[in-house]
């Protein structure tokens, strides 16, 4: 009668207490998306389990599918994957990823590509955390966040075209000025003071799309990418600001 439960890779995005001894855990599950799964609390006797039920750790879970909430049957650290312990700024970035993801992606909706996208970002945060890469300038971390934001928007169908003018459909020219249109691309602009020069837009999309190019963008273009993506995110996030931005002290 009992079907063998499938083992799946997962990350915890968020945990909240439910009733006396239970937790509702928001998981990101490979091949699925965001799933709310109910679990019993580890309790004092089971500190190992409590320590597992933390965000960012690469887990293997088995769960039983229910009509409303699913229930967690087992959880262990993914033996195939290096453990993730985010520190300082990388940890704040991790919180930022989780908040953006939870704000933009619906719970219990199918997002096949979400897991690898998140896995990529988190393992690069870990990489930065371990080697203490550019803790001063923060460029490496910024680059990871921009790639994640862009890829998440594309996955949700909110892609941004960097290579042609949305109105004329002509290629973006290095010496012409452009402005962002409706979070989906750029159009020629007559007011250079408030616009972006075409040469600045070039190379941003290939950087955002290519895994290996994480350190290849100039500080200036990275900053520009941040402004563009922030404007695009804002369209989909609404007026409620992202709380995790407050973690980054000036």
């Amino acid at each position: 009668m009992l079907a063998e439960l499938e083992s799946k890779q997962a990350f915890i995005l968020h945990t909240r207490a439910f009733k006396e001894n239970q937790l509702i855990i928001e998981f990101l599950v490979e091949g699925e998306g965001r799933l709310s799964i109910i679990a019993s609390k580890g309790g004092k006797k089971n500190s190992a389990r409590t320590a597992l039920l933390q965000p960012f750790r690469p887990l293997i879970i088995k769960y039983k599918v229910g009509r409303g909430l699913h229930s967690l049957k087992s959880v262990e650290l993914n033996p195939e994957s290096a453990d993730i312990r985010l520190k300082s700024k990388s940890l704040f970035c991790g919180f930022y990823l989780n908040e953006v993801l939870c704000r933009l992606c619906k719970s219990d909706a199918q997002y096949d590509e979400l897991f690898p996208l998140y896995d990529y970002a988190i393992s690069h945060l870990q990489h930065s955390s371990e080697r203490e890469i550019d803790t001063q300038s923060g460029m490496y971390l910024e680059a990871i966040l921009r790639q994640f934001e862009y890829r998440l928007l594309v996955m949700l169908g909110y892609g941004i075209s960097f290579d042609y003018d949305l109105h004329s459909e002509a290629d973006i020219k290095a010496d012409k000025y452009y402005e962002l249109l409706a979070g989906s691309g750029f159009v020629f602009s007559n007011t250079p003071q408030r616009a972006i020069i075409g040469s600045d837009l070039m190379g941003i999309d290939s950087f955002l799309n290519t895994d290996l190019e994480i350190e290849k963008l100039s500080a200036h273009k990275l900053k520009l990418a941040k402004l563009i993506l922030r404007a695009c995110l804002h369209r989909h996030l609404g007026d409620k600001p992202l709380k995790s931005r407050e973690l980054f002290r000036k």
Partner: protein
Amino acid sequence: MSQSLLENLIEQLQCLPGVGPKTAQRMAFHLLQRKRQAGKELSVVLNEAMDNIGQCSECRNYTELELCGICQNAKRAIDGTLCIVESASDLAAVEQSAQFSGRYFVLHGCLSPIDGVGPSEIGLFQLEQMLENGHVSEVILALNPSVEGEATSHYIADICKSHNISITRIAHGIPVGGELEMVDSSTITHALMGRKQF
């Protein structure tokens, strides 16, 4: 049909942690049968406590005064140590150990942006001001070893760094009576990091 007084009492008692309908019913009958006077006194003090207990303006611990007993005690400011805890019950636990003679700061939570808890919600701007004023020479972090506790620790460490205040954290280790093999790897990591000369 409107709710009887008894039903209402049983329902309200369930706001207490760990109290379900069964326990609430037992409590209500217990008060009615043998502890009517105590029940009345409870209701009076409960009412007063809810109206008058606020937070200490210095350390944010619960008190009905402007300053709590610990903050009023000048002796506790002498060595300039400030122990930061997540909750009033954590403060009570540290206080009970009688190992600490400095002052406290109670966060009433941990950084958790997804839950809408940022630096201002847990008093970190107030803490920063306090550290700026220069009466604190060492901050001791006594936060729980969760990811949120870790983030909070980093945020506070950042503040301390910019004000040149030394910062330490309590060692999270093997509980007394705990067995090494039952303890997870991150606890062992913390315990090793916090090791001391034997």
